[in-house]
């Protein structure tokens, strides 16, 4: 468990970092909080020629509000995001599941998005909340919606010369819930559901978004479940039918932790639990 040789660069400015990225492209890996990358390095599963350490880059962390939109710098530590009053409640709740305290102290929100581990909580919350990823390179800046950002396990829309700069989250609905299950208490998610929704005066669901971990090899929205629940009161029967509709075409991973069939069964239960909890909140 020792990494192979690599170059280490720790630029102090964003332009400095982007210049190195433009030069090294695929051969560089960005080191943010290191909570996923360091194990990959020492197991020699990641072998970058250049480790581009952005921990000394100024201006990459912080949380601000702009017209109801929350903007979170990519290098903001997960614990800081979780605790900031500006953070959307669903994201803060999802981060509560994101590993032990020591990991959240070090891990960054941007690192979690860019690494795109299919079991990570923050990407699912971002997808549920229609977050927008701000990508920067020497070529300029572009905005990518979360729905187009997470492409596959550990694969995102970030180009080799680009860096994730900021996560922007538009205002959400008033109610939310996050339900997760893993092998252990406080473990990697085997399956999880994030939802935010609104109720009308009759207690019917007037708006709803649902994202799932464990339904595919990346976080996904469950549009059929969303449609099935829109305009409905959350009864056990509607929830069960919506969950089944939402997961009908799902192709979850089958691995040592759980089979695909088990993930679907668990997600159906979690979806019902999460929506009920959000409605009751």
């Amino acid at each position, binding site marked *: 468990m*020792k990494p*192979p040789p690599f170059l280490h660069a720790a630029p102090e400015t964003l332009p400095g970092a982007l210049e190195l990225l433009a030069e090294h492209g695929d051969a560089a890996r960005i080191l943010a909080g290191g909570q996923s990358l360091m194990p990959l390095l020492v197991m020699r599963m990641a072998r970058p020629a250049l480790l581009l350490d952005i921990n000394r880059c100024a201006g990459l962390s912080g949380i601000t509000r702009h017209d109801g939109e929350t903007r979170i710098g990519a290098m903001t530590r997960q614990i800081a995001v979780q605790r900031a009053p500006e953070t959307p409640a669903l994201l803060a709740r999802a981060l509560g599941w994101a590993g032990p305290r020591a990991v959240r102290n070090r891990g960054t929100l941007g690192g979690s998005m860019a690494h795109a581990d299919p079991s990570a909580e923050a990407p699912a919350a971002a997808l549920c909340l229609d977050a927008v990823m701000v990508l920067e390179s020497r070529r300029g800046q572009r905005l990518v919606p979360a729905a187009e950002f997470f492409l596959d396990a550990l694969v995102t829309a970030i180009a080799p010369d680009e860096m994730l700069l900021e996560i922007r989250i538009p205002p959400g609905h008033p109610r939310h819930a996050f339900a997760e299950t893993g*092998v*252990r*208490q406080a473990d990697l998610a085997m399956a999880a559901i994030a939802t935010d929704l609104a109720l009308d005066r009759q207690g019917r669901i007037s708006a709803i978004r649902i994202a799932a971990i464990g339904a595919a090899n990346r976080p996904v929205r469950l549009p059929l479940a969303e449609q099935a629940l829109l305009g409905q009161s959350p009864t056990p029967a509607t929830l069960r039918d919506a969950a089944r509709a939402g997961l009908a075409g799902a192709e979850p991973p089958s691995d040592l*932790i759980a089979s695909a069939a088990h993930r679907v069964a668990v997600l159906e239960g979690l979806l019902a*639990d999460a929506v009920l909890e959000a409605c009751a909140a």
Partner: protein
Amino acid sequence: MSMGHNDPRSVPRKEDARLLRGQARFLDDIEPPAGTLHAIFLRSPHAHARILGIDASAAHALPGVLVLTAEDFPHLAPLSPDLPLAGFAPVPRPIICTDTVRFVGDLVALILAPDAYIAEDAAELVLVDYDPLPAVVTLEDALADGAAEVHPQAPGNLLFQNRTATEGFDAAFAAAAHVFREDFSASRVATVSLEPRGCLARHDAGLGETTLFSSTQVPHLLRNTISTALGIPESALRVVAPDVGGGFGMKASVYPEELLAVAAARKLNRPIKWVGDRQDDFLASSHARDMRFGVEMAMEADGTLIGFRLDVLANAGAYPGIPFGSSIEAGGGPRTFPGPYRFKHYAFRTRAVATHTTPSGPYRGVAAPVGFMALEGMMDRAAAALGLDRAEIRRRNLLVDADYPFINASGIRYDNGPHHALLARALELSDYRGFATRDTDPDRLRGIGIACITEQTGQGSARYRARGLLRIPGIEAARLKVEPDGSAVLFVSQTTQGQGHLTTFAQMAAESLGIAPEHITVQEGDTALTPYGSGTFASRGVVAGGGAVITAAETIAAKMKRIAGHIMEADPADIILRDGVAEVNGVPGLSISIEEIARAAHAMRPIGMPPGETFGLDTTQHWDQPVSSVSAACHVAEISIQRRTGQIRVERYAITHDCGRMINPMIVDGQTHGAVLQGLGPVLMERLLHDSEGQLMTTTLLDYTLPTMLDMPDIAMDHIETPALDTLGGVKGVAEGGTIGAVPALVNAIAHAMRGYDINIRAIPVRPETLLRAISTKDSR
């Protein structure tokens, strides 16, 4: 909540301040001497293959890199752990593979470099040409007709086999009112100690002496084995166990890496340091409990036990481990099975099966956690069939005081055991009767499970000879030295990995010396300092090591009394040693301090020694525990299962426990708590998985899920101290019972929670997936 913390005997552990302040010195904290070469072991990627060639030229091209293979160690003989007894196949373990590899992780080459980074770079450049051969991975593979043989010396892949039946067995079974049958199985598990294995070997060419620091539980056995394998006198070898971050039995084996580090240090005259990583540990440290128990249980109509017939299988892996051999689990399974019950008829067949997997070895409780899952699972099945309460069927069969001394069906002697009281108190502590009032959540299936268990502790030389083990002496020794200032140093042949020896042994010696425990320093783990003994494993500490400590302390106490009697002109028989002074019984005010006695004994006081008495307060005493000592416990686990996910949560947990007279109840509680978590893991989440080719798929802590502190239940615990009659000081061993009890109690609780569903819980781990399938099959009907 445990009672132990309020007990005055629960003095704080001497070890803790140092550990908590980061002042401990583990293997990797030892500063490598100048010129140290760092080692990486190149391991086989195949479960079974012939080695056609090894090309290390590219690796040698890296600066300072050396690659050593079997050719470089022509005199390293394979090691054999077993006596040449009937039932044992004579299969030795090679130290480094010559022409064949037999498991993924088998050792092919030793790579040395100026640092561990370069060593790993070099390991990638060594090209080994393998010719893969068919591999047998599971018990079923290995026992199938025409299965590939792991060793020609072990036909049918049987490394060890034994069968026996008590007299009149068949007739007794034939006449039984009921015979219940079930097959139980356990998945293979790893012992994950916080600190992986590692060692540092240093050779002094001038003196011809070699020192090995190793993260081990058995420094004396390790020295003895190195001496045999390398042909070095034991007097020229020193083995030191520094602080060790957990062993649990896994570090009680001797491993090839340790022998090769010494051989390379002597060959090259350079210090060699190896710090294993988690993957090394998963691949090449002993695995455990890949076992099957086929059980038949015969009963009278009223639920009285008649006897058992067992068919036990243990997947022993590719080689017998050193020193516990191939019979560790297959032999231990039937030996520990009978537990706290009275029955006369017993027959078993047991087999240790060779496969192309990592060798198995001892892990906390060895086979007993699986054995008691089978035994206590049978008791629950019988209760259900006979319409009896699960506590009642146990009451009808537990040993009672009138049975003692009791020799059980596998020949183990029980001097006493408060099994009825343990069960009764556990039912109270757990509020067993009130279960129904807690089983009210419609979202969760709730269950409660009982396990009555015994733990065989403190084995001595006779047991190891009977088990056919060549390399385990079974004795322990203690040297006690009182210094001129009245403080004492105790050198014990065992070594500690968290058991609290430095505290417990000081407390044991203090009892007869009258010296406060804080003035008694305990030294362990260094063969140059401590007398020869076996090591720390099998819950032998307080019985076997403690026996030597008590004997040494009583020897010195007797001498101090003679000296005190001489000084105070009193009969030594009237001297009482306590609180740092020697008093004369019945003469208030007449006393001298222990420091004065110690000064007299070192010729530093005007009044000399009694006539004929030698100077010094220094003795070495050996102890061989004549018969094993049996501890006992009752565990009651209450769990619930989330109906929509199948997730299991432990809701309540109660233990009643007897380990004889306790020296430090807080340490006993701590041992039990840790052991429970190591029982919970294999029931709820731990399993090592191989693919059909023998590749281990669980080689990180992401894939091999261990319970964390968050999975640890609160434990209500009570002790019923029943002093042992067969040991010194009334003590019985402790450390494994928590694991042995947790497995059956949790499994029985899960089975109880699933009582309305069509599922037979008889294999661990119990996976939420299996439960959810059964739940949704019925609920959707």
